[in-house]
């Protein structure tokens, strides 16, 4: 039983991170209709940059962190402007192939620059553990959950109350309508990529602090795919819920596998099976919107 609760807490924490990355993925999809297969590389690059600033440049954590955020925002904007803007209006499949290419390119580049071995972050917090339901949970995990929640609240506030957030929603709704309101669609695209890369970096650094930085980080980009499809590709909330679901399912599968089934590797495949089942019942995903239409 203890193991079960432990795994559920684990699932929730990891799931919240998946949720955050899935929101970033959905943000790009909603704003600019690009399925970004290089989402995981945003985590990877952000985490490596932060690691490099902390260990090689010996910056204090807060500065290293802020500089990597700024750098990655710029990086996201540049990727949009240089690589994806010329592809506006091209077939979806070409755009997808370009993001797959970006993913491969940056994975290789990171391996070339930083090596293939996992590198630990310098200790930022004294490792202590807190009690949750009578179980000791490492404080870094609690921090990770806290950061994820903060980001989610931030997203909620941004889209509900800020001028640019509303502009992004308008652009997602219809680009011509957005332009007719004076919104620069190009700017919104670039901003979406910038925010997405920045927030992914936060997730990347959090995972890096917990597990160390390695090329495994880009695996998040793959996990995010079932998460956001599960939730509905065009729903930010859906991405969030999908992420948490995937996190929980992984650990649930792990539990049953290790305790009873002993099939091995269920951990990795269960999210995809569940995605298929849910899509059979709800083709738009759990929260995906069919258009509101007055007839």
């Amino acid at each position: 039983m203890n193991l079960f609760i432990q795994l559920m807490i684990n699932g929730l924490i990891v799931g919240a991170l998946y949720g955050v990355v899935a929101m970033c993925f959905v943000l790009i999809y909603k704003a600019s209709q690009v399925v970004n297969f290089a989402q995981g590389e945003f985590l990877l690059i952000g985490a490596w940059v932060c690691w490099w600033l902390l260990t090689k440049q010996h910056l204090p954590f807060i500065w290293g962190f802020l500089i990597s955020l700024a750098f990655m925002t710029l990086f996201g904007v540049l990727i949009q402007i240089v690589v994806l803007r010329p592809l506006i209006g091209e077939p979806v499949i070409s755009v997808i192939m370009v993001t797959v290419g970006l993913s491969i390119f940056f994975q290789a580049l990171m391996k070339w620059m930083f090596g293939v071995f996992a590198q630990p972050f310098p200790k930022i917090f004294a490792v202590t553990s807190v009690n949750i339901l009578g179980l000791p949970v490492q404080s870094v995990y609690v921090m990770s959950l806290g950061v994820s929640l903060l980001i989610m609240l931030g997203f909620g506030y941004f889209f509900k109350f800020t001028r640019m957030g509303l502009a992004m929603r308008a652009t997602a709704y219809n680009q011509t309508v957005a332009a007719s309101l004076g919104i620069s669609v190009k700017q919104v695209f670039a901003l979406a990529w910038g925010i997405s890369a920045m927030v992914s970096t936060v997730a990347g650094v959090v995972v890096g602090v917990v597990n160390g930085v390695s090329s495994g980080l880009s695996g998040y980009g793959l996990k995010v795919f079932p998460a956001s499809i599960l939730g509905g590709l065009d729903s930010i909330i859906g991405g969030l819920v999908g992420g948490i679901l995937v996190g929980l399912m992984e650990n649930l599968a792990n539990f049953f596998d290790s305790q009873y089934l002993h099939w091995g590797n269920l951990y990795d495949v269960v999210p995809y099976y569940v995605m298929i089942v849910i899509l059979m019942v709800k083709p738009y995903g759990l929260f995906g919107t069919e258009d509101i239409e007055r007839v």
Partner: protein
Amino acid sequence: MEQRATDAGPPAPQPAPPLLQVNNIEVVYNDIILVLRGLSLSVPKGEIVALLGANGAGKSTTLKAISGLLWGEDGAVTRGEILFEGERINGLAGDKIVRRGIFQVMEGRRIIADMTCLENLKLGAFTRRDRGVRRDIEMVYDYFPRLKERTGLAGYLSGGEQQMLAIGRALMARPKLILMDEPSMGLSPLLVKEVFGIIRKLNRDLGITILLVEQNARMALQAASHGYIMEQGKIVLDGTASELIGNEDVKEFYLGGSEERRSFKNLKSFRRRKRWL
């Protein structure tokens, strides 16, 4: 207004240049489909001008050419120029043109269905950074009290309410010129009357210049001071609203009011009236 005034004598009071001047524009879609062929019109400041014509004449295209929204449809102004307050605006992106003070209320309302009324109104003020936005929201609610009561998603509003929201959203931008594309579309006759009443009121109270595209020619000419009639991408007739209402051809084709004619034997179509150069 007579442009060929005598240039002798003391500085005669120059006629104010029109707010919007469209000179001989040509619009092409997809690089091959010629939609507007040498269209010219002018909209004086503070007036309501109606642009009438049959389906497919190019009325909406004209508005989109002015507001810079052709790019979304792969269209472009290939010839001629569009002057707003004396400055050339063709070639500018749609969002830049909104910043100059031209706001288009698009055909079919095009409010953002998955946002609330208030969010739609706030988005109308996207280009503004002054502090008057809150006050203007109240002003819009004064014009359209029904919008204040609706707190749900705009997609669930009735057609008339959506049209009012679309007009209210335009007001939020504090534009100098509003381009209205078929405000009467899909509305009951009573609502059409109400909408046109509002259009006149906006023109009178706020001094907003309006270029109005309409199928409902009678309503449009009653509200407007001046009218243009389009056919196949050209202006074929123009004049003051009362001239047009009195014109036999207009009666025949657009107002549908002439009682005597029952046969289509003598039907004629407009020939191009050359009005430029």
